[in-house]
Each structure stands twice: as structure tokens, then as C-alpha cells.
């Protein structure tokens, strides 16, 4: 079976400087991979590159951004629109308008449907942001610290949704520091930190700094 997400010899850069290099991994449909690494180690940069928001320095990502849904730190929701209006907008952009009620139910947002998003607590807002992932209808989810400001019950609810996504043949790459309770291998980005040689290569030089 072909991989849901296949990354070969990937090198990513932040602000033109290489952050991670020689990264290769595959995620099979129905599986998740947890991304670990200290702050500033390049997890967000890697996810943004995979999502197609920035080009990689080297290497290939398959499939393209068209089948990848990116869940960033920020929720991207408008404070003056209600929960339902926000979700309906994103569902419309992704052509999934029928899925709005179901997404609200799965993230326990139905009771808050008419509330303006600016009146939500941080955790409720986070659930709203995560509900958008369901509405993309895309098979590969990239999640950047999805559980920030979620309480224990919401984390469990989110893990259920994630398990449901994997059970239907989806895949996920999750940058998180807490245990979501899903059966997933861990990829530590530490060993892939870019070296001076990568910096030289990125800047089109052959030797070290002394050369």
C-alpha cells in the first residue's frame, strides 16, 4: 500500500537558514507519527514546509499540498463571526458544507454555535480551530501543538476524533509534547538538526567558514 505521506531527504529552512536536513520518513494510511523536539528545533518549520507554505531547500514531499490539511498554532477564526459562521465559511472553501453540524457535535461546540468566536474561552477557541480540520476533507493532517489550552476532557475528545480520522484511512503528523493516547511512533527531530555543512551548501559555498 502506498504511503499517505512520503518525505525523502528533506531539508527545510527558516528565514533562509537551514534548520533540519536529511529528513526521510513515511506515514502509511491509518497511521500517525508524533513529532518531538525542543522549542526552536524546527517542528513548525517542517510542518509549514510540508503544508506547502514555504518551499523546501532540498528533497521531496509526496503527495502535494492538495491532500494535506494544516492545523497551525493560530485558529484563523474571526471574532465577530459566530462559531457556526466561521465553520461554514471554511467548510464552503473546502466544499464540505454538509459536514458542519457533525464537526460541531464532535468537538462539543453545538451549544456554542451562535456564540461569537471572540466570546469563547481559549480552550473553546482551540476546539473551534481543530473542528476546521474535519471540514477540510483532506486525508493527511498536520497538527502543530493541537492540545494547547485544552482541558483533559477536550484532549480525550480530540484524541477520539483523531482516532476516527485514522480509522477511515487518514494519516496524521502531530507535533505535541503530551501523550494523546494514540498508538503512534515518535520522531525526534533532534538528530536532523542542520549542520554547518548544510549552511554552507545553502549559501552556495563548498568549504567551511574559514575557506
Amino acid at each position: 500500500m502506498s504511503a499517505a505521506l512520503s518525505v525523502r531527504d528533506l531539508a527545510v529552512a527558516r528565514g533562509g537558514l537551514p534548520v533540519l536536513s536529511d529528513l526521510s520518513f513515511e506515514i502509511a494510511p491509518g497511521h500517525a507519527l508524533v513529532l518531538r523536539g525542543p522549542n526552536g528545533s524546527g517542528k513548525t518549520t517542517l510542518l509549514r514546509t510540508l503544508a506547502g507554505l514555504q518551499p523546501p531547500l532540498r528533497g521531496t514531499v509526496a503527495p502535494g499540498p492538495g491532500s494535506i490539511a494544516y492545523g497551525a498554532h493560530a485558529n484563523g477564526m474571526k471574532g465577530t463571526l459566530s462559531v457556526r459562521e466561521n465553520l461554514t465559511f471554511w467548510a464552503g472553501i473546502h466544499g464540505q458544507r454538509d459536514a458542519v453540524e457533525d464537526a460541531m457535535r464532535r468537538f462539543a461546540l453545538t451549544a456554542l454555535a451562535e456564540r461569537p468566536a471572540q466570546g469563547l474561552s481559549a480552550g473553546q477557541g482551540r476546539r473551534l480551530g481543530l473542528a476546521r480540520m474535519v471540514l477540510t476533507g483532506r486525508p493527511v493532517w498536520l497538527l502543530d501543538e493541537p492540545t494547547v489550552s485544552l482541558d483533559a476532557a477536550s484532549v480525550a475528545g480530540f484524541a477520539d476524533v483523531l482516532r476516527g480520522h485514522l480509522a477511515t484511512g487518514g494519516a496524521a503528523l502531530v507535533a505535541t509534547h503530551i501523550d494523546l493516547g494514540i498508538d503512534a511512533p515518535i520522531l525526534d527531530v533532534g538528530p536532523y538538526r542542520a549542520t554547518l555543512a548544510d549552511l554552507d551548501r545553502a549559501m552556495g559555498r563548498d568549504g567551511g567558514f574559514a575557506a
Partner: protein
Amino acid sequence: MIRLIARDLTLAFRAGGGFGLAIAFFLIVVVLVPFGVGPETARLRPIAPGILWIGALLACLLSLDRVFALDREDGALDLLATAPLPLEAAALAKATAHWLTTGLPLTLAAPCLGVLLSLPWPGHLWLGCSLLVGTPALSLVGTFGAALTVGLKRGGLLLSILVLPLYIPTLVFGADVARRGAEGLDPVTPLLLLGAVSLGCLALLPFASAGALRVNLR
């Protein structure tokens, strides 16, 4: 694309959206001019088309820094860039929404405000015509400027400095249409040139805006 326009219009009409700001600013500029130069008809009449056009142009600038900056702040721009909607279409939708909330109301208000500056008939008609044809270019150029400065803190000032020189062709032809109309001359030639500027902007700038956004999202 229509959904994005509809969302932006809804946001503009909701509290704090800034709809009506451009019109209010335009009204104040036009009201201030007779206080500054004197209320004599003979003095106001020749400068009325130019003042009205400059007022509309400045009013257009007011809301430009919000075009992409708000979406950038709350993360919606990243999500839009990864959505199935091409970024070019998103840029065009943003420009359209900006025009519907500023350019179109300005076009409708300007002929009425022309009375305050003793703009003679049929100048009102041609002023309205020139704004209708010219303001889309203002929104498109402004959206491009907003895309260029989206990553910058306090990019609004830089945006004005970038965008205002690019408004010159539109201002020259637009004010000329209104002036010729008011003086009873044939305004069709500058009107055609004004239309050419707007169509050129429509054809090219959504692509330029999308390119600028892609660079700024990195």
C-alpha cells in the same frame, strides 16, 4: 471565492469592521476644503474635480492596511494559502471586497458631495462615471501593496508610500474625466484611458499580489 467576498463583507458590516469609515473620511475632507480655500463658487469650481478625486483616493487608503493584516494576525491567511482556492483568486476576492466596501460607496456619494464644492452639472455625472471606472484600480493596486507589506509591523505607513505613487495614472485620468465633464468638453478619451488602467490592473495585479503573499508567508 464568492464565499470569501461574502465573509469579508459580513466582517466589514459587523462591529469594528470599518464599513462607513471611508465615506465619513471623504465627507470630512470635502467639507473641510471650503473652510480652507474659501467658499466662493468661482474659486471652488475649478478645483472641485481634483479635490473630490484626491479625497476619494485618500479615503480608499484608510482601510487598505486591514486587507491582509487581520487575516495574517489570526492565522487565517496561512489557512487560506493551504486551501483549495488559488491564492490569486483569494487576492482578487480581497480586492473585490475592498472595492464593494469603499470604492462603490465613494462612487455613489461623490456626485452628492460635488454639490458642496459647486461642481457644475453635468460634472456630477462624469465624476460618478470616472470613480466607477477608476476605483477598482485603486482597490487592486492597494491590495497588491497590502500583500507586499503584510509581514511588517506597522506596515500601514509604508503601504501608503508604496501605493500612492502607483495611483498617479488613475488620479490623472480620473480627475481629467471629471474636469472635462464639468467644463462641457468631451471626457471620453481620458475615460477610456482610465478604463485601460483599471483593466490592466485587473489582469496583472491578482497574480502579483499572490506572488507577494507567497514570499511573505515563508
